[in-house]
Every structure is written in structure tokens, then in C-alpha cells.
């Protein structure tokens, strides 16, 4: 029996506003526990929430780009449940009247998945986009019985979260992966979130079900399970693949799917049932009486729409036009906003420092795509963690353009720059890699080489072209590769044809 996979994704994204959603505390990541807190976000008696306007802007920015209809009137609601990471024991979220509804995300799906040779585009519906406050972080200390306890850090409490709920229109774990990637790229480009799954600024839960392929038109959706605790893109794909297989096997075997919440165990690579809750939670949603209804004026929304940052597709086109890059290179460089930013900053710096290079844009692109990215990927580092900063790369390229070092030496220098983070000039000085371009000096060395390699000279004069290369090699060897190859060629030719 063949089945159709049906997946819906619920994504929570931390918005990178400076302060929290309902108070002025900092949202800075990594601060010591319980230092970014105040009476409001720790739920002291008597406190009241005040809405952060920037968060609304970021939310609307996202909703517009996702093609949603932004509400004229949105209402915050209390979601009631008890847990130690929730200071008020209710979360201020949105329920009946969310910020935006009915959008879509366009995915580009490459050929291995489809049966087509060329990539296809697929639209996945987005049901709703709304704002809510994040909860705190719990750290469980499990040790001997006397030391069992949990610690609560309220730094995270109150950070604005954007919840984006997709329609159940994703039909494979690979599609889900692409959906999340696409969403992440857009959100980074919109500059509304860092979308770092490791830091928790991008979280994803899934609803998974399957249904028989031969009765698609009649059958409704199968029983779904909720999948949580997928903490990386890899985990997302693995968990979904596992769960889909589990459901198909169970159904083929004659069993029934139980509607439940499952946690992905990244070590054991299985989904586990959360047996703690036997019943569905009744959150008793009601409109938040401490906040007035949010009335969004047309002008406010239009202003945001007019001032959208450059989106990935647009930036890629611009890179192709402005920097004369190939589609491939432009694609690689714009795949992530920080990388595209890195590229453009390098170009800017180069122009500022008046680096003379014939095909500067192409040269910078090459250094990044061939030398830098490979090394970063091998160490699982992001461009923001690159030991080589744009200024460093610029100075390296400048040295090449000034012929202080050759292109070949530059590669060695780059390797050390990456390893040590040192500046190009420093390394060149320390290792005495400055190119020898003084013609007289080279002439002396050439003379010496010619004297030492008379048989090879004879071979050249006898017509063997390869001998020339050998002589060049000898000169390079004598100068530890520092001789300017063009000048070596020139002088060697002169001397041989004297």
C-alpha cells in the first residue's frame, strides 16, 4: 500500500528586538542567568504588560513577505497553564484574532526528490502568523536523590516569538527541510531574527500523518501525531523520516495511529511518547484584559511594506548584474544573508582602499567560495565565525594587486590567516614572503641558476620547451617561491636568447 505523507510545521522564531515583548529588559543571548529580568517578566504581583512596537513591525514585515493578509484588528489572549518556566502561569499569546492569516511559502525543490530533471516550485500555505511571549529556560540537574533539582533562568521569559503555522501541505521530510531552510533565509534577510537553531531562536514542531494514496480524493487526513524536540535541521529530517516510516509500518501491519505528542530522541534516533499528559490541555483562552485590541492602520502596514529589506531572490539578481557573477556564484553567496553581507563588505572595503584589480568582484567571490567556505564548512562554522574578516581578505587581495606577493603565495598566506586570524601583512613579513620583483636581483639569481644548470640550458637551446619550465622552477626554488613569476619568465627568456 502506498501512502501520502502529510506534514504541517509549526515554527517559533525569536524576534531580534532589543527588548522583550512586554517590558524593557534586554533580549541579549548568553547573559548570566536571571540578569535580564524585571518585575514584569518575572510575574511579580501588580505588574502589567506594555507592547513592544518593534516586535509588531517585525511581525508585519514577515507577514507581508509571506503573502498573508494582515489583520486590521488583532487581539492578544491569555493561554493558561501551570509550569515553572512560565512566571504568570499564563502566556500572553494570540488566539481568535491573530496578526495575519492565509499566506504561503514558495519552495524550490531540486531534482533528486522529484521525478523531473529541473527544479519545481511548490507553494505551501501558511495558515497564521502571530506573536507571543517566550517562556524561561529550565535546567534539570539529575544526580543523586538529594541533589535532584531544576534551575529556572528567566532571561528568556518575555522574548518575542513569532509563531508561523503552515497548512498540512508538506509531503515529505525533504520538503519540510526545504520549507524550514527557505523560511530561515527569508527571516534572516528580513533582519527579524537570527534563526539559529542551536541558540534556540528558531524552533520547529511538526504534525505528521499519512493516508493511502489510492483514495486521496475521498479520504480525509489520517490521525496525526505531534513531533517535538527536533533541535537541528538534521534532526528534523531524521525525525520526520522515522515517524513517517513508523506510521506506515504500523498501518500496514493493521494497527492504528494514536494521536499523541512524541519527542525526538536524537541519540537513540527514535520518537518517544510523552506519557505525562493523558488528556489534551484546555488552555481556557480569553482576550488579554491588560492590553487593548491592536488596531493596525493601513498607513502603518503600507509604510512597512514600502521599506522591506532586500529579499534573497532580488539580491541574487542584483549580484549577477552588479558584480557580474555567474548564477552559481551569486546563488552560493546569497544563500545566507550574513554571507552576502560579508561579500559586499569586502567589496566595499576594497573600493575604499582603492584596491586595483581587474576583476575584483570575481576575485573576491573566488576567494570566498573556493578558499573560505570549504574551510568553514569542514569545521561547521558560520561566516560570522570566520577567522578571516572582510578587512583581512581585502588586505590580502591588495597585496596581490600590488604584486607584493604572487597568487600562489597568497594561498599559503590565506591558510595561515585562517588558522591564526593574523593579518596578511603580518604573515608576509614574518615569513618573509614578500615577492621579489627587483629585476636586478632576479637577474642575479637567474644568472646563478643558468650557471648551475648548464645541461638544462643546453636542452632548451636544443629545442626542448619543457626545459624552460624546469629553469623557472629552479629560480623559484632558489627564491623559496618568492620571485615574481612574470619577471622571472621575462629575464630568463632575455638571458637565454642573448
Amino acid at each position: 500500500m502506498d501512502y501520502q505523507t502529510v506534514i504541517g510545521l509549526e515554527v517559533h522564531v525569536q524576534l531580534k528586538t532589543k527588548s522583550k515583548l512586554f517590558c524593557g529588559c534586554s533580549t541579549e543571548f548568553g547573559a548570566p542567568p536571571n540578569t535580564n529580568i524585571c518585575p514584569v517578566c518575572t510575574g511579580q504581583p501588580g505588574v502589567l504588560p506594555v507592547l513592544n512596537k518593534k516586535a509588531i513591525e517585525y511581525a508585519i514585515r514577515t507577514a507581508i513577505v509571506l503573502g498573508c493578509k494582515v489583520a486590521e484588528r488583532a487581539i492578544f489572549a491569555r493561554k493558561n497553564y501551570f509550569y515553572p518556566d512560565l512566571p504568570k502561569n499564563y502566556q500572553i499569546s494570540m488566539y481568535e484574532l491573530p496578526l495575519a492569516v492565509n499566506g504561503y511559502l514558495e519552495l524550490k525543490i531540486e531534482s533528486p526528490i522529484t521525478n523531473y530533471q529541473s527544479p519545481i516550485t511548490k507553494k505551501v500555505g501558511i495558515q497564521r502568523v502571530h506573536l507571543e511571549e517566550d517562556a524561561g529556560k529550565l535546567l534539570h540537574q539529575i544526580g543523586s536523590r538529594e541533589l535532584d533539582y531544576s534551575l529556572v533562568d528567566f532571561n528568556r521569559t518575555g522574548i518575542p516569538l513569532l509563531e508561523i503555522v503552515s497548512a498540512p501541505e508538506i509531503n515529505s521530510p525533504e520538503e519540510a527541510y526545504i520549507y524550514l531552510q527557505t523560511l530561515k533565509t527569508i527571516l534572516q534577510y528580513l533582519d527579524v531574527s537570527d534563526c539559529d537553531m542551536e541558540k534556540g531562536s528558531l524552533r520547529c514542531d511538526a504534525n505528521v500523518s499519512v493516508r493511502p494514496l489510492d483514495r486521496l480524493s475521498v479520504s480525509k487526513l489520517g490521525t496525526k501525531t505531534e513531533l517535538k524536540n527536533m533541535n537541528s535541521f538534521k534532526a528534523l529530517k531524521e525525525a520526520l523520516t522515522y515517524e513517517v516510516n513508523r506510521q506506515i509500518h504500523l498501518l500496514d501491519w493493521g494497527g492504528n495511529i494514536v494521536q499523541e505528542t512524541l519527542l525526538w530522541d536524537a541519540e537513540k534516533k527514535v520518537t518517544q511518547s510523552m506519557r505525562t499528559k493523558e488528556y489534551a490541555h484546555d488552555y481556557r483562552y480569553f482576550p488579554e484584559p491588560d492590553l487593548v485590541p491592536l488596531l493596525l492602520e493601513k498607513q502603518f502596514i503600507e509604510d512597512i511594506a514600502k521599506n522591506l529589506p532586500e529579499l534573497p531572490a532580488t539580491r541574487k539578481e542584483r549580484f549577477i548584474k552588479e558584480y557580474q557573477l555567474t548564477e552559481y556564484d551569486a546563488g552560493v553567496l546569497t544563500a545566507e544573508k550574513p554571507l552576502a553581507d560579508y561579500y559586499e563588505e569586502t567589496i566595499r572595503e576594497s573600493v575604499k582602499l582603492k584596491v586595483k584589480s581587474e576583476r575584483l568582484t570575481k576575485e573576491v567571490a573566488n576567494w570566498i567560495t573556493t578558499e573560505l567556505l570549504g574551510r568553514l564548512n569542514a569545521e561547521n562554522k558560520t561566516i560570522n565565525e570566520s577567522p578571516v574578516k572582510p578587512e583581512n581578505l581585502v588586505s590580502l587581495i591588495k597585496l596581490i594587486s600590488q604584486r607584493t606577493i604572487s597568487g600562489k603565495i597568497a594561498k599559503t598566506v590565506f591558510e595561515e590567516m585562517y588558522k591564526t586570524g593574523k593579518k596578511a601583512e603580518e604573515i608576509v613579513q614574518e615569513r618573509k614572503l614578500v615577492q621579489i620583483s627587483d629585476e636586478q636581483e632576479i637577474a642575479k639569481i637567474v644568472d646563478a641558476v643558468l650557471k648551475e644548470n648548464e645541461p638544462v640550458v643546453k636542452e632548451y637551446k636544443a629545442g626542448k620547451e619543457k626545459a624552460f619550465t624546469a629553469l623557472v622552477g629552479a629560480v623559484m626554488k632558489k627564491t623559496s617561491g618568492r620571485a615574481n613569476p612574470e619577471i622571472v619568465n621575462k629575464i630568463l627568456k632575455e638571458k637565454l636568447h642573448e
Partner: protein
Amino acid sequence: MQIYELTAKELREKIKKKEISVEEVVKAFYTRIEEVEEKIHSFVTLTKEEAIKQAEAIDRKIRNNEPVGELAGIPVAIKDNLCISGAKTTCGSRILENYISLYDATVIKKLRDADAIFLGKTNMDEFAMGSSTETSYFGVTHNPWNLDCIPGGSSGGSATAVAAKEAPFALGSDTGGSIRQPAACCGIVGLKPTYGRVSRYGLVAFASSLDQIGPLARNVYDCALLLKIIAGYDKQDSTSVDLPMPDFCQGLEGKDGIKGLKVGLPKEYFIEGIDSEVEKAVKNAAKILEKLGAGIIEISLPHTEYAVATYYLIAPSEASANLARYDGIRYGYQARGTRHEEQDLVETYEKTRGEGFGAEVKRRIMLGTYALSAGYYDAYYLKALKVRTLIKKDFDEVFRKVDVILTPTAPTPAFKLGEKLDDPLKMYLSDIFTISANLAGIPGISIPCGFSQYPPSPFPLPLGERSKVRGNLPIGLQILGKPFAEETILKVAYTYEQTCKESIKYEL
């Protein structure tokens, strides 16, 4: 004349003129408190040390002729659900019995800026849920007019502090009548501002869409003075309103007094079950207003009969969420397992809240949780919100024809302690005249308009004479106004008060 017998206005004058020092004033009130507290129990906490320090600082400023705030040196009693940084805020509950506030409520900040002095935190019904101050974990408060009777609630302690002259004025909170009803029971003035007029930041929430902080005082001027200081837009309270605010102390007299003012008497408020003396006193007051030039018109507020039910669905629902934070995890009372028994998270929640909350609070939390739960939300909570709109519409309609509405504040004078404790529904009905104002968000003031004879006698005394008989109980007159028209209701109240000064003078 003792210092504690002076009104806030008089104290202000004397302090300004340097006739008395602030320290003298503060000490005089603490002496008075010592005299009567045992019998009345207005206060949960006295902040004497802080108060003396504040007094010394202000005296210094005055001696040096430095500028001082508008309430310089005047003591205030504060209801124990308002946060004063560094002081206990118990809300009359075991679950906060040792909780120390981390910040000043906005109204407290404003009072500090005005150089007022905080005498202490007054007793109240637990989490403001009650009409008699009998549900406080820290014991009952007694009505100074008759120690066997309730002071009203939930701002009972604030009302008695003012009535017994332990403070010139006080702050209370009003969710369903909790300022006005105790003011009526204790024969003083109490005002609930329009919802949004005073910031709720720092008021421990009971029902967010109904709560308001307001002044209680011995006369209308003092009441207006305190309101003037605490009112105003606050960006920390998203439900506070940024509207122009007149100086409430001006305009009390007005050029023509209340000539031409239209006063409505709602027929639904003069029904069976209302004490005959109360009805007489209020109708009498109406006659006096008429003599002063106001026009009395009979009006109808047809949805009045649904007000109590509506309130007792909305308020507990909001309260069930507002009180969820009291779980023993971050602050307040925490129930521990006994004999090294292990206690998991849920047990901690259940025990802490089971032991920390009193019966009435638990009753309301359960009511509210039920009204919001799946399957019942539409029939109860949502329905109540809709009826609330109808009740507000009643007032909108009526205020097209009249400027203010006159009603009794409570259906009976203060009843005996313990009388209604066993019958919550009976207790709820004592809010019947005050509750609609909270539902509609309109302002209301209660002023004394006479005394009832207690116990009732076949030989009734004239209204004017009753105040001199021990054990007789005050009757309150309520004046309701249009949204943000505190000025108007204060004017009517003041005019009436000045006219009837003699007949409603009281001696405690």
C-alpha cells in the same frame, strides 16, 4: 482640636505655614492609631520607621524653604494590595504573608513625589474578594460606629482608618464597589474613578478590566485632593487613558452650584429588599438636590438585574488567571512536604495554593476556571461579556438625558460581623448597586447622607439626630457620572455635603 482631627486640607495649611512640623503630625497619627487599633484593626502593617524618616526629610526641606510637593507631610493609609517598594504587600492573604514588594506602584510614586507620608498598609478582604473584610487572613476589621458590625469591603481597613481618624485619607481599590461600599458603611467619602483614569501598575490584580484605585477621605475636598495626585496617564499601564485632566480641587463650588443639573433616579434600584431607612435617606437627599436647583428625573437601567451575575462571571474568570502566579515557586508562601516526604511539582502547586488561599478566593478561582473552560466558555464568559455591553449601553442611553445618577450605595447599612459569611450569594447581593459602575467603567462616589437607627426601634429618631446615638450606622449616597466626569460627581457631592454639613456631622 487634636492634630488627628484636622482634615488633609487643614493639615496642609498648617504645615505650609510652619505651625506644626511634619514629625509632629506623623507622631500624632501613630499615637491615635495606638489608641484605637486594638478595637478596630485597620492596619496589617505599620511603616512607622520609614514614615518618621520621610517626615524628617520633609521637615528639613520645609525649614530650608525648598520646594515641597502638594501633599507635603500629609499621612496616607494604603490598602495592602498596593505595592510599596521594600514593604510587605499581603493582599490580606496567607499566600503573600511575607512578600516584600520590589517596586513602587505608580500611584505610590506619585504620592512620594507629592511628599505624602505612608502610615502603613490597611486590612482588606483577601485579594479584594469580598464585601466585609471578613475574609482577610489577618483577622477582621471592625466598624468604628459599631464594633459588632462590618466595615464593608474589600477596602475595609482603609475606610475604618479614615473614619476612626487614624489617617486623614487613604487609598483603596474598587472592583465591584470595594471603595464605595466601605465608605458608605463607615460614613466617609469614597470615590471610584473612571476605568483608565488612574494607573493600575502596582495594584495587585483581581479583575483586570474592573479594578480601579481610588481615594477615601472624610470630606469631598480631601477626596478630590487625593484623586488629583494619583490620577493621570501612565505608559506602564496599557489600559490607562491619555485624556486631559482638570484640577479636581477647583470647580467643586462652581458658579451656579448644581443649578440646572439633571439627576436621574433609576427605578430598578428602588426595589424590594432595600432597607427602608436607606431608601428614605436617599430620597431625602434627592429632595435636597432638587431644592438646590437640580432636576430629578426617573430613569431606567433595564439590565440592572443581570449585573451581579455578569460580574460574578467576568471577575472570577479574570481572577482565575491573575491569581495563577501564586504558586510558591518564585515568592510567597510555599507548602513543604512533611517528614521528608517527596513532593513533586503538582503537589507543590496544589498544597501551596490549597493552604495559602482562603475559602472565598478558592471559590472564585474555581468559578472563573469553570466559566472559561472548554464547552462552557461560550455559555458563561462570552455571554457575560455581551451582557456587559448591554449594561454599558443602558448607561450610554441614560446619560443622554441626565448628567448624574443618584442611588443608594448599599441596600442595607453595615450588617453584623459573621451575618452573611455562610451565604456567599447573599454576600454577593450587597454589591448590587455598585457593581454596574465597574462593568460600565463609569466613575462613582459615595458620600454619607444619614444614619440608620440600629437596632431598629418603634420610636425612630429624626434623621439629623441619629448620628449622635452610639451604635447607629451610616448610610451612603452614591452618585454616578459619565465617563471621565469625576469633576461633575465631585461637584454634586461637594454641594450636597456643604448644605448638609450639620445634619450629617458625626462624632465618634
